[in-house]
């Protein structure tokens, strides 16, 4: 009885995964991420790598939430750092000042994040396009100044709030086990939120979002309550942005004013351009590319390359890092504006389509080819 359920479940799962090549690719990527801690176990800097990967998972949630708002609904937001900072600050203030456990602080922070998102979403009923981009940009900058220079008892000024080790999520484990547990927790949350975001984006609501992106006036003419759906996309996006902030608070264990800076708001934009706009999986792939470039390439290999080139100055090295990184971003934006991840999946879908057409017979195949040309 149970065995038959398992076999049936397994076979339907296999059919689901192998049906579409990009689904298979996503599954393989998930497997790789699950096995990654075992792969890097041999290195001495193992906990450090785990922490970088955890940070990448958190950033991926953040970037995917930005992508739902901008890539799907077309509400250009340059101030997504607001949600990130609000999540981290709320959860850590509640945890350190009022000694509340994470299962109280995180839902409270999420609620606050949604409220903030609705508050910011309200101007979007009046403001459009570049104006909206600039309005959203101002909120985190204002928060940055507030957090840095007022109410030092609550916000602790420039230093920010640190979560004591005792209050971390897994205080009873040894450091390596703790980091591994944190990594798997963040990966699980990333997977769940990515699935939710993807389902939202491909649901009926998601189609309405795309219609707003394509032509707002026509959607309005079709009887869609545009304001409601815009606010909805702000709320969903704010929810997951705040979730990323809470994870940052509990896993990286710090909330500081620089979280509100413009550079933080630009990370999801850059990452989404790496991966591909409006795809949800694009920003996640892009985040991993970004994290690898940022942490492994620039911290490990780049100094060696420079050493071979005969440069050893330390301050110039730091400047050169950001220079080369910006150049890479620029080249990617100019060369592949549709993103790297989309390039791969497009190729795969094309191949699959070609295979299907081959099976169905030469006549359709020929027609497809002439149509394609």
């Amino acid at each position, binding site marked *: 009885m149970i065995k038959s359920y398992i076999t049936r479940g397994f076979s339907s799962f296999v059919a689901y995964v192998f049906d579409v090549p990009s689904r298979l690719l996503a599954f393989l990527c998930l497997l790789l991420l699950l096995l990654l801690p075992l792969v890097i176990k041999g290195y001495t800097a193992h906990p450090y790598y785990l922490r970088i990967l955890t940070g990448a998972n958190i950033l991926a949630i953040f970037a995917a939430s930005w992508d739902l708002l901008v890539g799907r609904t077309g509400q250009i937001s340059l101030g997504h750092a607001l949600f990130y900072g609000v999540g981290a600050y709320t959860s850590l203030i509640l945890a350190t000042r009022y000694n509340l456990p994470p299962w109280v602080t995180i839902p409270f922070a999420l609620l606050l994040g949604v409220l903030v998102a609705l508050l910011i979403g309200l*101007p979007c009923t009046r403001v459009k396009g570049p104006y909206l981009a600039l309005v959203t940009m101002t909120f985190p900058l204002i928060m940055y100044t507030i957090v840095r220079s007022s109410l030092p008892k609550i916000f602790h000024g420039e230093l920010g709030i640190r979560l004591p080790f005792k209050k971390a999520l897994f205080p009873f484990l040894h450091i390596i086990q703790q980091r591994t547990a944190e990594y798997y927790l963040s990966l699980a949350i990333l997977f769940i939120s990515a699935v939710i975001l993807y389902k939202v984006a491909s649901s009926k609501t998601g189609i309405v979002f795309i219609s707003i992106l394509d032509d707002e006036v026509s959607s309005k003419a079709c009887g869609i309550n545009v304001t409601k759906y815009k606010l909805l996309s702000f709320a969903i996006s704010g929810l997951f942005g705040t979730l990323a902030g809470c994870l940052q608070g509990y896993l990286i264990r710090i909330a500081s004013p620089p979280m509100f800076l413009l550079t933080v708001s630009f990370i999801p934009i850059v990452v989404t351009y790496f991966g591909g706009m409006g795809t949800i999986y694009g920003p996640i792939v892009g985040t991993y590319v970004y994290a690898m470039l940022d942490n492994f390439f620039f911290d490990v290999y780049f100094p060696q390359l420079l050493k071979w080139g005969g440069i050893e100055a330390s301050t110039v090295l730091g400047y050169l890092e950001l220079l080369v990184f910006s150049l890479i971003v620029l080249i990617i934006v100019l060369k592949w*504006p549709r993103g790297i991840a989309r390039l791969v999946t497009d190729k795969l879908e094309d191949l699959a389509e070609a295979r299907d057409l081959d099976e169905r017979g030469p006549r359709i195949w020929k027609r497809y080819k002439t149509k394609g040309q």
Partner: protein
Amino acid sequence: MLRELTLILVFGTISGGILSLLALGFTLIYGVSRILNLAHGSLYMIGAYMLYVFTSIFVPIFTSFLGSSFPNLDLVAAIFAALAAIGFTGGVGAILYIATIHPIIGDEIATMVSTVTSALIIQQIILIIFGSTFYPASIPIQGSSLILGVTVGNKALVALSASLILFGFVALFVNKSKIGKAMKALSQDREAAMLMGVNTTKLFLLAMAISAMLAATAGILEVTALTGTAAAWMWLHPLASSFAIVILGGLGSIKGSLIGSFIIAYSETVVKILVGGAITPVVPLVVMMVILLIRSKGLFGKRVEMED
């Protein structure tokens, strides 16, 4: 109280005049080509740095040609240096357009990303060449005069009048000359303008170069009149203020940018003098947000058309 009021009036006017040039460049390139150029602050910074570079090149050359007894040799060299710096920055703006904006023109978010990365690249190049120290850059105009009981350096007055004259000149150019009329036509309806035989790429390039030159002029006048030094992080604050001004006055409106820059400059000076310097950077942003919530297209802006 009266003294504070006159201080606000005088210094607000000076910084408003300089800001108006910065905002004019920003609004010009947006109005003509719908490019939100986030590297505008970097062009301002390049202007200030190049003033330093060209001054240190020109002073020895001028001394060897004219002899050290020539009157006001420093001043003459600095003025030529300023002109060279403005020209250089115009070239940088044109190169930026060709290399980073032209391939993706029409895609708003991609343009923002590419211009912000170019701003970072420029900042890093300047850090690598000059380091993170402050550089003295200024046009040496001596003396000071008394206005409304406040002592103001002559260089600030020269900067104010120069910026207002240049603003008038550019506004006249856009409104009266043939090229300016073509730019206006492009901002009103790009397709119709193209049908009338307007070469868009050429005009975008020209608008970008003019906007870069205006930014450089604003940078030079700012370091001459107010700060006196150039630093590698001086691009972010002017960028935020020019955003605020341009949004306040309406994107693409020349009259709006003049009035907006004075509103922003006065409110900034009020806060700086009455409250203190720490929260000054936020002031333009708050003013901008309030105005936008009251009037969503800015004071003089036209409707933002959606994608057609």
